[in-house]
């Protein structure tokens, strides 16, 4: 995976099963996004870069901030499952060994405290 231009778009389309070119840039996905305020690039902008075929998308942080809450998916008037697009971007990174969470990052205190489901879900979504 070289991560250049339109290749990323085509790969995302294949892995997510979603067609980014259906997006009409209405911004409903961004408006309800859980990552609003934390993501530097909200889902509508991610969709736009996919349409342009921008290779730098794989280095953005939005996919790693996404909580897979499916609000975007529920709201998109074009029927795009935007959460699947975010997952495809994560998958492309995970497949080339890029991830953002490692067991060593977690302190003893939070490990003792946090429910098991948080560990399993976070590692499935955020580590390679």
């Amino acid at each position, binding site marked *: 995976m070289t991560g250049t231009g339109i290749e990323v778009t085509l790969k995302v389309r294949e892995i997510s099963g979603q067609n980014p070119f259906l997006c009409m840039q209405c911004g409903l996905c961004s408006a309800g996004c859980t990552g609003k*305020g934390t993501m530097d690039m909200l889902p509508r902008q991610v969709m736009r870069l996919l349409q342009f075929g921008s290779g730098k998308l794989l280095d953005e942080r939005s996919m790693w901030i996404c*909580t897979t*809450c499916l609000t975007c998916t529920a709201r998109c008037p074009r029927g795009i499952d935007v959460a*699947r697009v975010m*997952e495809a971007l994560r998958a492309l990174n995970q497949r080339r060994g890029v991830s953002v*969470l490692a067991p060593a990052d977690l302190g003893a205190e939070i490990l003792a405290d946090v*429910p098991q*489901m*948080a560990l399993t879900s976070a590692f499935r979504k955020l580590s390679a």
Partner: protein
Amino acid sequence: MSIPYFPGCTLHVKAKALDDSTRAALAVLGLELSGLPEWTCCGTVFPLARNNYIGMVASARILANAAKQGDGRLVTVCSFCYHVLKRVNHAVRNSDEARTKLNDYLEEDYDGQLRVLHPLELLRDEVGFGALRNRVGAGLKGTRVACYYGCMLSRPAAEMDFGDPEDPAVMEKFVAALGGEPADFSWKTKCCGSYQVLNEQGLVAGRVKDIFQAAAAGGAQVIITSCPLCQYNLEAHSEADNHSRIPVLYFAQLLGIALEIPINKLGLAGRYADPEALLQGARR
């Protein structure tokens, strides 16, 4: 009546209170939950990448084993377990490819016909909210309850079949049956930040603050949830952001209070925001 039940890893350890209160409250209503003889983690998250069947294997195995119980139903209460089991079940039932691949891998012959049920659905459909109303005391009368569904119960609507994806109503009807008053709560299906508690703490803090503010604005005296991770995230940030000191309980604990089950069976001790005021109301 005994119904096959999948507790899941978190209920086995960190969220024992949800397991205990669910079993105790349903038992009082004549619904005995019998844990599956063998189970593993459900995998917690539904894989969103196409053809990621390996991410569905754990849930598919649980479903195939549950089907062998012969009841036709599987009850599970943790919002994550319910979400992933129900979606994998949907995939097995509706996609020839998913059914074939998962069965071939597991050497099973499961057709996806199980009904995966949340206890709120059991209360609505098996007990009946009308009958429930007649079983509870007057202890929660007028108590304002914020029904917090979070992100996992109602989306995606076509697969979860839990009501409107952003405005489900079953929990409010449940609260009304207990004699409580559902509070206006615009954040009821917003996400608490979920597993980002391990990666983006600031995001979780922000969402939790919004949730507490919305609950307080609606005059809520208690927030209820069926998700151990919502419960954890809300309680962990309570000190900073829960200015109204609204306790965060599992819906099954509220049900237990309404049914006057002794609180030591509901796992209610030692919380940050004390439910004592609620309990006093219930004891009156």
